[in-house]
């Protein structure tokens, strides 16, 4: 690439015109399209190209490193560091970042989210700021989307780092503690955000004397930033201690639940998130179980298990929400379509589900520590991100992370045609049109990628295609080990690939097959044809699917097929909002633009609601996070040798303390005391977490008392935390009091103090913060006064609302 060539700025696909941008700014949107202010620095980076052609890269990198450690401003070092990476890339891999990639690197350096089109080489972009920030030796984390990408990127980019003397490492789910510690010592570490979060939690539970795995956080570059920072942000990372599996009565309850009739004995709410027994169902359950009224205080545990069994039976769908493989339940992530390792449903729901599928009970556990990705990533002093789809999430990125979005234009203009959605009145018409479209493209020799909503749908579609004589490849959570091979062939002429969301992020489909040998043929047929069989809840995910076509200026087409019977449409009542005439079934696509607007609106509503949920999650978890930091700091002091609280025990009960010292020696005695203190510390935290979770469950009800749930939650959480400190000492003293200063007693203690054994993430199955009671109680003075002015109107309005809210 000619170094003097300046990229055409401001011509990214979908770059709005001046008016649009003005409107965006007026509405407070925080997207940067104008990259002209980056140009002087870009020119300086590119200008160094000739000078470095024959230079000793290692020596120059070392000099930069010295300056960085001497406290030089990174901005001054940037042009040379970036230029060094470009040259090193050229020498090591034959890949020199394009000017637009340098722009992306500049945006990352400024701690922003860079939107780069798919196939524009994000991996290479990340190297630029990673090297710059690694110069000071504080450690840079590149947080990849999955373990495979962490390994691939670290190895692929390794030679560049090596040329510059920057050490690089990666770690994945299976890495051992020593490997992890070493990986964190490297200048640049590739890993997933989840692994980093888990290690953070592990460090928070380490025994005295053990060195921490991680160094203090410095700079993180998040790949697929919108997915990690927005969509996955509400997934709490959990570290748990194993408990023996408890069968309880799950099997019996499962049989009982199965005998119930939906609609008659139990009902689900419209959004399919909650299920509950009706009066008739309660009668049956009480008769079958023979334990009297289920809502009495003595049956609380039984009722809880019954509810969980019902939830597992009625709401969780096999091959949609989870798959069963190798005698185990594996959760399918709604967003990525992939099986998520070590993800559980919380609080006994997992056991209920295992009973439903007749599987052996896996380990249950209790939560020892938890952190949400939102808060964990907030621990990095500097955070940057890159993704193909940042727009649409800019408000959230700004509000929750203080991250601005910069849209970097593609190296070559995008040639993909995004066709308007094809809308149908009913599913059958959509299915027929889908099959026709697929067959037509296949006949033309155009490769087709079909994105479906679930494992089940992908299998059904594949079966239908097979019946029509069209062979296809299926890529879903069940066939994930074949992923690389299926994707490699997905761009071959006439290839037919049915996928779930799995073929979304990070999937790179080359035209013309694995070796690109028949590329010309495919290009002539119009490139990859991406079909979505649904609209997804988030427009960003629709855009990710579309983005599989038209990479690097390739031709391509994308089109979504939507019917008014689709889950999304029905769930959010879009069909009800349409004029009755539109609901008449017809085979031809609907032409009415109003329908499309309604669907767009539904997606906006969902996005808004999800944002509200995450904002709420943030607000509620913020106090817990601050408490965690406080509690963790106290623990850290204990681990590093602060005198344990029980030293007061020694003063209070000198005789017992002497007996302990006599039994095991003074040093060991203090060690024991320290461990007892740590154990009490962790134990209390576990209880505190459970208490907060419980508190959160019902806090929304204070709204009925005209109080603000969040304020009330903070007040109560604060009280509980204060009590925690008071209880710590009492618990330590009690434990030491119980301790028998004999060999057997010490062994029993050691047994009790065993550390955590497993980590997993939880799927938050619903949102505990939704305003469950749409009730407004007069607390607002302005409304009261207004009501006085317009009381006839107000009374009428209130009555209307009251009648509309009548229970079904």
């Amino acid at each position, binding site marked *: 690439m000619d170094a003097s060539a300046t990229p055409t700025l401001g011509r990214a696909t979908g770059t709005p015109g001046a008016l649009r941008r003005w409107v965006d700014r007026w509405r407070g949107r925080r997207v940067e399209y104008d990259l002209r202010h980056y140009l002087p620095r870009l020119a300086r980076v590119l200008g160094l190209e000739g000078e470095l052609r024959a230079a000793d890269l290692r020596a120059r990198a070392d000099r930069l490193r010295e300056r960085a450690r001497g406290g030089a401003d990174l*901005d001054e070092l940037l042009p040379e560091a970036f230029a060094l990476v470009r040259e090193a890339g050229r020498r090591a891999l034959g890949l020199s970042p394009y000017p637009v990639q340098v722009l992306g690197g500049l945006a990352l*350096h*400024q*701690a*922003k989210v860079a939107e780069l089109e798919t196939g524009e080489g994000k991996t290479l972009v990340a190297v630029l700021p990673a090297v710059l920030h690694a110069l000071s030796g504080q450690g840079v984390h590149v947080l990849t989307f999955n373990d495979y990408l962490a390994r691939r990127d670290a190895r692929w980019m390794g030679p560049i780092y090596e040329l510059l003397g920057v050490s690089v490492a990666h770690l994945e789910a299976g890495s051992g503690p020593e490997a992890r510690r070493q990986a964190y010592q490297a200048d640049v570490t590739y890993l997933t955000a989840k692994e980093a979060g888990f290690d953070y939690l592990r460090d928070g539970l380490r025994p005295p004397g053990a060195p921490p795995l991680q160094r203090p956080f410095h700079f993180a570059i998040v790949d697929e930033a919108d997915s990690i920072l927005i969509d996955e942000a509400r997934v709490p990372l959990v570290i748990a201690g194993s408990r023996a599996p408890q069968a309880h009565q799950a099997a019996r309850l499962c049989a009982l639940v199965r005998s119930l009739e939906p609609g008659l004995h139990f009902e689900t*709410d419209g959004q399919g998130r*909650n299920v*509950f027994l009706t009066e008739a169902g309660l009668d049956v359950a009480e008769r079958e179980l023979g334990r009297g*009224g289920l809502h009495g205080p003595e049956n*609380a*545990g039984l009722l*809880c298990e019954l*509810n969980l069994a019902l939830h597992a039976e009625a709401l969780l769908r096999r091959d949609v929400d989870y798959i069963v493989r190798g005698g185990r339940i594996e959760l399918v992530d709604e967003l990525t379509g992939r099986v998520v390792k070590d993800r559980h449903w919380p609080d006994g729901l997992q056991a209920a589900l295992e009973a439903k599928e007749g599987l052996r009970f896996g380990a249950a556990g209790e939560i020892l520590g938890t952190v949400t990705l939102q808060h964990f990533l*907030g621990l990095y002093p500097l*955070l940057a991100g890159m993704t193909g789809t940042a727009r649409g999430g800019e408000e959230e990125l700004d*509000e929750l*992370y203080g*991250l601005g979005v910069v849209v970097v234009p593609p190296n070559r203009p995008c040639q993909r045609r995004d066709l308007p959605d094809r809308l149908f009145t009913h599913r059958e018409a959509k299915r027929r049109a889908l099959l026709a479209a697929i067959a037509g493209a296949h006949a033309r020799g155009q490769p087709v990628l079909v994105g479906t909503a679930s494992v089940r749908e992908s299998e059904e579609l594949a079966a239908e295609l097979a019946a029509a004589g069209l062979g296809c490849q299926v890529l879903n959570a069940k066939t994930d080990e074949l992923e690389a091979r299926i994707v490699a062939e997905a761009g071959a002429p006439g290839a037919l690939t049915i996928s779930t969301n799995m073929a979304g992020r990070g999937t790179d489909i080359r035209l013309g097959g694995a070796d690109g040998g028949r590329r010309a043929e495919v290009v002539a047929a119009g490139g990859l044809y991406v079909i979505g069989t649904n609209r997804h809840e988030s427009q960003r995910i629709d855009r990710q699917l579309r983005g599989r076509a038209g990479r690097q200026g390739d031709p391509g087409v994308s089109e979504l097929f939507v019917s008014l019977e689709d889950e999304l449409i029905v769930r959010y009542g879009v069909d009800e909002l349409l004029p009755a005439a539109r609901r008449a079934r017809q085979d031809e696509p609907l032409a009415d633009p109003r329908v499309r607007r309604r669907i767009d*609106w539904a997606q906006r*509503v969902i996005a808004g*609601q999800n*944002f509200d949920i995450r*904002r709420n999650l943030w*607000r509620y978890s*913020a*106090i817990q996070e*601050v408490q965690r930091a*406080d509690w963790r700091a106290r623990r850290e002091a204990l681990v590093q040798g602060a005198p344990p609280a029980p030293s007061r025990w020694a003063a209070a009960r000198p005789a017992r303390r002497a007996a302990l010292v006599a039994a095991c020696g003074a040093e060991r005695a203090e060690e024991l005391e320290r461990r007892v203190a740590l154990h009490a510390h962790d134990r209390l935290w576990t209880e505190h977490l459970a*208490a907060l979770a*419980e508190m959160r*469950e*019902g806090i929304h*009800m204070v709204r*009925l008392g*005209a109080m603000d749930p969040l304020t009330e939650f903070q*007040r109560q959480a*604060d*009280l509980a935390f204060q*009590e925690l400190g008071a209880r710590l000492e009492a618990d330590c003293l009690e434990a030491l009091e119980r301790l028998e200063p004999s060999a057997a007693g010490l062994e029993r203690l050691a047994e009790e103090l065993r550390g955590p054994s497993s980590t997993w993430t939880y799927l938050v199955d619903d949102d505990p913060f939704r305003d*469950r*009671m749409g*009730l407004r109680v*007069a*607390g607002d*003075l*302005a*409304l*009261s*006064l*207004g*009501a*006085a*002015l*317009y*009381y006839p109107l107000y009374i009428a309005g209130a*009555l*209307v609302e*009251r009648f509309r*809210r009548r*229970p079904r």
Partner: protein
Amino acid sequence: MASVFGSLTKIPELRKRILFTIMMLGIYRIGVFVTVPGVDREVVDKFFGSSSGSLFSLFNMFSGGALRQMSIFALGIMPYISSSIIFQLLAVVIPSLERLQKEGEMGRRKITQYTRYGTIVLAIVQGFGVALWLESQRTNLGEALVPDAGWGFRMMTIMSLAAGTAFIMWLGEQITERGIGNGISLIITAGIVAALPDALFQTFTYLQKGVMKPFTVLVILVLAVAVIAVIVFFERGQRRIPVQYARRVVGRKMYGGQSTHLPLKVNTSGVIPPIFASSILLFPATLANFIDKPWMQDIQAALQPDSWTYTVLYVVLIVFFCYFYTAVTFNPIDVADNMKKYGGYIPGIRPGKQTAVYIDKVLSRITFGGALYISAVCVLPTLMIAQFNVPFYFGGTSLLIVVGVSLDTVSQIETHLITRHYDGLTGPKGPRIRGRSSRG
């Protein structure tokens, strides 16, 4: 309370917020004394000296006395309140607004924006009405309130009144965002409280001149304190119904003494019942100004605020509206349904119908207590003060508003105190993990 004030000096953030609030309220009070250009201030004083005891006085109270002064803030915050209630009502009826409301924060922000536009429109309309009305008014002596009537004056008045209202709206929002408490409520409260120093001063002069006996003043003071104490007590009163959620495996120790509960306030309907009641009772009096018939005058006489018919009707209406409003806003079937849906139940009581019946029973009982309390607060001080012939009217409604807003504000300060260890829980833009400034 003492600890609250003690810690004000210690926490800079809180101090800053409170000072900001006081400063904004001060600016508001100064503006109240700026008369609309083109109006003869002295004539206005003479003109308003006579009229009282109608809807006008209610409006005057809400405008913080600005209406009487014919100041640029004469419309007060009322157009904003009207606009917000209109949009609240419209959202029930118009689907597209309802959709906006459902779109989350973005949609709600848009509705707020519409409410502001609506405020300006209403202020312009009301301002025009006020201008026309001012032009037509003369004092008993025949002096015109507006020496130079005409379109110039009308435009000027519309602009100053609309700008005044927009400014107050802005002040209120600034207080909510950067100060403490709800700005709009505080502005209204400030208007009410502003009458207090005047009244105190007057009482003091009466005392000096011997019009009032020191004993009477003492009794009034004790009475005032007692009424305020009663209001505080009842406003904080709750009946807490315990609720259990059967979705987590139980068997965990609970501590902190807090369990999940359904809090039912003794006074669920706030100040709505007395405001509704008095505006209904004031309506005939206002009407009587326009209808000059003997029977109308009879009705007006029967509904004079110091007559016993007025008092009885007032109490009856308050009790009615307490029940009516509670019934309209609080639907036990809804509450029970919601609880059932999310696995919550009152221990020992079946979810669904039984629970609804139980909540209804409890609610009916405490609403009765609440209705009695509001009636007492609204009627007793007025009656007793009438006995003592005190020079100022500080009625039950105003007291309820002032105490209610004060309680809210104090509880907000308390929240700040609690969360002061928790840096960054709230910020100027809501929650935020960390403000990152761009580098380079």
